[in-house]
């Protein structure tokens, strides 16, 4: 169990800023996050053209890719899968809905 003070979920979305698919998924995820307790989630958006080493470290080759880094095990959602599944994912991780 993570301490109550630390966010339960860490998400990183790798995007190609010039791609409509990336922008669409980013919008979907950000919209979904509004419905959940923001303090329980760390959400970061990274540009694959600028964060090459972090993308390589996170084993990302496609954009958009949402990486769930915590809680373990990690998971990768390529394409619009991240946008579609983020709400389910957060609920499964025990993140409470925002009041």
């Amino acid at each position, binding site marked *: 169990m993570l301490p109550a003070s630390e966010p339960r979920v860490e998400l990183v979305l790798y995007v190609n800023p010039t791609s409509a*698919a990336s922008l669409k998924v980013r919008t979907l995820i950000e919209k979904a996050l509004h419905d959940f307790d923001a303090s329980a989630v760390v959400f970061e958006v990274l540009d694959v053209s600028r964060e090459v080493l972090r993308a390589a470290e996170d084993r990302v080759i496609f954009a958009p890719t949402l990486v769930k880094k915590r809680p373990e095990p990690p998971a990768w959602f390529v394409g619009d899968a991240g946008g579609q599944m983020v709400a389910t994912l957060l609920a499964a991780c025990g993140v409470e809905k925002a009041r």
Partner: protein
Amino acid sequence: MTEVRKLALGVPGFDVISNGGIPEGRSTLVAGRSGTGKTLLGLQVASHLARSGVNTVLLAVEEPPEDLITCADSLGLDMSGAIRAGTIVVSDVTRPMDGPMVVSGEYDISGLMHRVEYLVKQLGARALVLDSVTALFSPRPPAELLRSLFFQLVHGFRKMGLTSVLLAEGAPDSASVTTLGVEDYVCDMVVLLRNVFDAERRRRSIEINKYRRSAHYKGEYPCAITSRGLTIFPLDARENGGERAAERYSSGLPALDAMISGGLLRDSIAIVRGPTGSGKTLLAGLYARAGALRGERVSYWGFEEPRAVLLRNFAAIGMPMEDLEAKGLLKVTCSYPEAMGFEDLLVQLRNRLEDYDPSLIVLDSISSIEHSLSDKAFRQFMVGLASMLREHRRSALLTQTIQGGSATEHTAPYLSTIADMILALDYSPDDFDLNRTIRVLKMRGSAHTQTACRLRIGEGGLNIEHFAVKQESTRRRSDLRSRQLEGLHVLVVEDYGDAREATVAALLRDGADVTAVGSASEALEAAQQHAFDAIVCDLGLPDVDGYTLLERLRGGGGRGADTPAVALTGWTLPEERQRAQRAGFAGFLRKPVALDELRDMVARLAGASAAAPATRDGGP
């Protein structure tokens, strides 16, 4: 049409069939089913390019980088060294295995392309190998997206100025080149690797299916996977540049040299063709021995007998080879072609050419290879062999056994084309003797004797006599001695088929009835059934030796107990001769025997025996 700039790959044979290598700055697709050698080829390409000063990025999608590096190092490609030297980088693009991956909807490969861009900049890379496209796009995206992704990939590499080699899983049918079915449209060059079942054997081949703006060799070419990686055999008689002087060397048989205006020509291929027992192996041995005695390195490949038997037979006729081997002037290798594919044999021959650097090569016989292959595969073997010999500028003597017919008759046209010289050995029967003959059927670039000459087997190997000169005296002797064995029934015991046939043929020609067997047990059985006038017996037999056989015949008290016997053997030590006498052999002849000597011996023993009828019919 502008000329395509190419990068040589250094994969043996590939740069020949591709007329210089892969297109520089463009993408080459290498497609093949599992086990065809795609990854090996990719590793060879990456290592060779890096060694040639073309720094290379290797994208490991299907296997982890450490597995690829280990594999490359085991092939002697020293990829670890190249990585340390900063000429290769292997980037891990394998799918994460520590958690699930869900793929849906639209996406692009910008993550990969930015990584490649970064690596190219860091390394100063000009080439890239991707292993494999199939694994990269797995699960397979919808067709439209897949086409778009592959287009991004190829054009991204091209924009970066990379020469890329993309490996892909080949399609199971001929409807498309790969399982993904899109890659070949975008790539400038498409190479197909195959590993098919043909005549109960796996046969590997490579084909350049497409090469934009470049001529290339069409069709399939055999290839093999060796401990050094993939090796391809271009099936053309490719000449190694440079003028050829008309240098001659001795065949080992001075009279044969005289028949061909002073000897064989360097860098030529000679085929010695003839039926079983015509002296082909002896001629091959003479050729090899003469070369080694001149101080040349000779590689002798025997496909018909075990090494010990071959060397023993050569020694028995006064052609010992052991000393020459010990001095490093001769390497005798005996194997059975059935145990390997022809590509593997070509690889062994090529390795021998490169490692041992012989100037003369003997293959005895190509017929053994022919029997273990389909017609197509044998043709490929011969053309590949000739190509290799020409490429390395080596001289070779190949023997070929003719089954039935005459050695002067026409055989497969490609064999005649390959050979610079064809010698036909044959039997030339007359009323008296089994005359062996030799005739030069063809010799490129040289005058040669048109008529057949007589070939004799004797001490030191072979001797040639001019037939026309000897014919008269032979005929005279023939008149006197023909049918000298008429009315005699002779048992021939010999396990070696060629020797048995030759002995039987000689005795039949002299009028004898002959029963021939290949073992002592068969001989004992035959002796129970027939009353023989003489026994001609080899000493080295597969079940019990000839001494024991004769002791059993003598001790059996039945038919054969008193039949005169002559030992015909390659065992020539004095103690062996003495032991043969003790066992009851009345005569002792050394192989190879002159036929008139054998006839005279049989006639004499059977005649002496006939003078004592009580013993000749066997048993009291």
